[in-house]
């Protein structure tokens, strides 16, 4: 192959979308920073409006940016090398998400292995216990905090177990959709993908039901000490990621229905499916450490 025929790496010309994205993040961050204060301190202000404006801008930006990109991809401007850039970029993004969850899992492990036992007087911390909270008992799940707040622990059977099964099955159906796409079986692809989206939505429905149960009947809230904190932050951020993943897969479904993707060229679908498997793995770890153990 001579140099002239070398496949050129596509470097896009100027684009307004990233700058619009930066404006959107500015509005979101500034709006959220004010909104949080307004709702928790009962103040008047425009934080919520600014936040909403930012989110709308973000959605418009994503729509425009991805539309450009789909256009470029479908008119054959992309090379195999560019496809590798996208795949590697997605893989590193997922790694960053893993580390985000690692921070919260770290907090959970620290509380269970170090801070709660120490408050209960373990190793050389006997005086900590006797001077600060002599009646405090270090047991996990922490249903009574040192300050005396009481709650109930969430069991692992019932809804959480059902949700685990749902997510595991959805990972399989997502993989089946991918297999069908690569074999160019469009009908099977549509079926498996639609089923995956449905399972994601069912998971979220049950998750909401579990939260309602926890808040109204068990007295388990975000404020219920370190047990409630880690429970809601981990399951909450996971639920947020499931929501995103479901939306991504739903958009992929629309694109499949419009005839997008070929057995060779389907980066967006693959990225969505990787994201879904990642969310699934996080749940399995979460189910094990938050619910069972």
């Amino acid at each position, binding site marked *: 192959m001579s140099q002239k025929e070398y496949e050129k790496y596509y470097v896009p010309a*100027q684009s307004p979308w990233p700058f619009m994205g930066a404006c959107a993040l500015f509005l979101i961050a500034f709006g959220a*920073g004010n909104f949080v204060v307004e709702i928790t301190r009962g103040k008047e202000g425009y934080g919520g409006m600014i936040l909403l404006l930012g989110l709308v801008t973000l959605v418009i930006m994503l729509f425009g940016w991805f539309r450009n990109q789909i256009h470029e991809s479908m008119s054959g401007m992309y090379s195999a090398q560019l496809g590798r850039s996208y795949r590697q970029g997605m893989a590193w993004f997922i790694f960053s998400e893993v580390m985000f969850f690692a921070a919260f899992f770290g907090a959970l492990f620290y509380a269970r292995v170090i801070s709660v036992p120490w408050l209960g007087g373990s190793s050389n911390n006997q005086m900590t216990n006797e001077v600060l909270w002599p009646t405090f008992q270090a047991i996990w799940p922490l249903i009574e905090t040192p300050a005396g707040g009481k709650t109930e622990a969430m069991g692992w059977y019932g809804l959480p177990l059902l949700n685990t099964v749902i997510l595991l099955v959805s990972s399989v159906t997502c993989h089946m959709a991918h297999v069908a796409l690569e074999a160019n079986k469009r009908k099977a692809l549509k079926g498996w993908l639609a089923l995956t989206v449905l399972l994601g939505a069912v998971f979220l429905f049950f998750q909401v039901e579990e939260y309602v149960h926890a808040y109204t009947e068990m007295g388990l809230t975000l404020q219920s000490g370190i047990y409630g904190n880690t429970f809601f932050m981990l399951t909450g951020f996971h639920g947020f990621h499931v929501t995103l993943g479901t939306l991504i897969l739903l958009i992929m479904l629309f694109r499949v229905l419009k005839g997008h993707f070929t057995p060779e060229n389907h980066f967006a679908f693959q990225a969505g499916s990787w994201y879904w498997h990642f969310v699934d793995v996080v749940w399995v770890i979460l189910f094990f450490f938050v619910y069972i153990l």
Partner: protein
Amino acid sequence: MTTTTSEHQHDDHSHDDGHHEHHIPKGIKRWLYTTNHKDIGTLYLWFAFIMFLIGGAMAMVIRAELFQPGLQIVDPNFFNQMTTVHGLIMVFGAVMPAFTGLANWLVPMMIGAPDMALPRMNNWSFWILPFAFLILLSSLFMEGGGPAFGWTFYAPLSTTYSNDTTALFVFSVHIMGASSIMGAINVIVTIFNMRAPGMTWMKMPLFVWTWLITAFLLIAVMPVLAGAVTMVLTDKFFGTSFFDAAGGGDPVMFQHIFWFFGHPEVYIMILPAFGIISQIVPTFSRKPLFGYASMVYATTSIALLSFIVWAHHMFTTGMPVAAEMFFMLATMLISVPTGVKVFNWVATMWRGSISYEVPMLFALAFIVLFTIGGLSGLMLAIVPVDFQYHDTYFVVAHFHYVLVTGAIFSIMAAVYYWLPKWTGKMFDITLAKWHFWCSLVSVNVLFFPMHFVGLAGMPRRIPDYALQFADFNKWISLGGFAFGLSQLIFLALLIKACRKKGEPVSAQVWEGAEGLEWEIPSPAPYHTFETPPVVK
């Protein structure tokens, strides 16, 4: 070490002459909508420099207050805001964006790539930053003032005892983190996927290697920082008790999470500096780098070790003795690969034909002064003596030696080294030498006496101090003002350089410079390596 065939250089010229669809766009849109790695690199570097001046102005306020004992100029709460925002700006607004700017300019040119791998995302990661710092700086003017809990935002200072603008701090850190992660993903993917044919791993310039490892560290720890600020937010506003013992949490847990991010962060701010020095020293010694492979392995080991040393920032929190021993020994282990690096730089110069151009002056200052910072770090790593040094000016002296005379001197060395390549003209050498010598003398007057007042027990982050520290503090402040003024020389020089004043330079610029970036014309054309060169 790497050469292209001459045909490919011709190829490049013919490409510049036209026939590709986008020419250099004009006006403000060029900068707002750009996808060009050189434009984005320039934006990053100017942003970093402006932030350096703003953060520096805050340091001047701090030093003016500390010029004499007693409360003199600002009230203590504002003093705390100055120390906090000075730190945040210098870390996230000056040093990190400057290195990212250098990566943007240099990595594609060094590996023979047409641009960064994801050019639009590159634009996004830059433009987030001015907005993030606009939010952070605007909080200084709001009710209650800006963050005043130190750049490390320890709980409960940042939760129970902070004001409500903490929410703005939290969200601005979130979007800064998003920017860093996207920038790092771009660098890593560019290096993995965009190397020219023949540019094998062990032929990559060390700047590229060190940035590859830095990018990995960024992706690994910036999300942990996001987690930490999120917990601060929920503890402060939504009633969680991650950092509150009454709910089963622990304020010390904050420090663990923060420093799990914070220690790799320290290496994020020094590994690219190692890369820069490893480019400059061989050029002006006219010898290849001594121990190339050992440099790569040393950088990798420093990065891996950085994940298991975080608690050396917390020796006085009452950790179990076994943990203190572990973190002490792991920390000391880092001096081995770091020593390998310093040895290799010196060995590169050994019997070299050395000349003292401005980038080399900064590089030599880096090697000596960074090593001083490294040695005081080794002292701080020793648990029993750290009980004495902890939270004193000795710590301030230590990290300013590694960050100012380390990271920032390396950035200045890099700017002087590659500026002629960027503008096509030699910078004003007289001004540059004035900048170097004024900075070198004043920075040592500024930071060296801090070791003494620290050892004598002067605490950091305090607007007032005991009378016995008065003399040293006067000198420290004078050094600080002089160092601040010296940077205005740099500003003048940069403005002059950007207006393309000066003698035109050759493609190679420096006799002895090797690498792909020195084989393209000066100034570097807007698009380079649209057809990849073949590296032999």
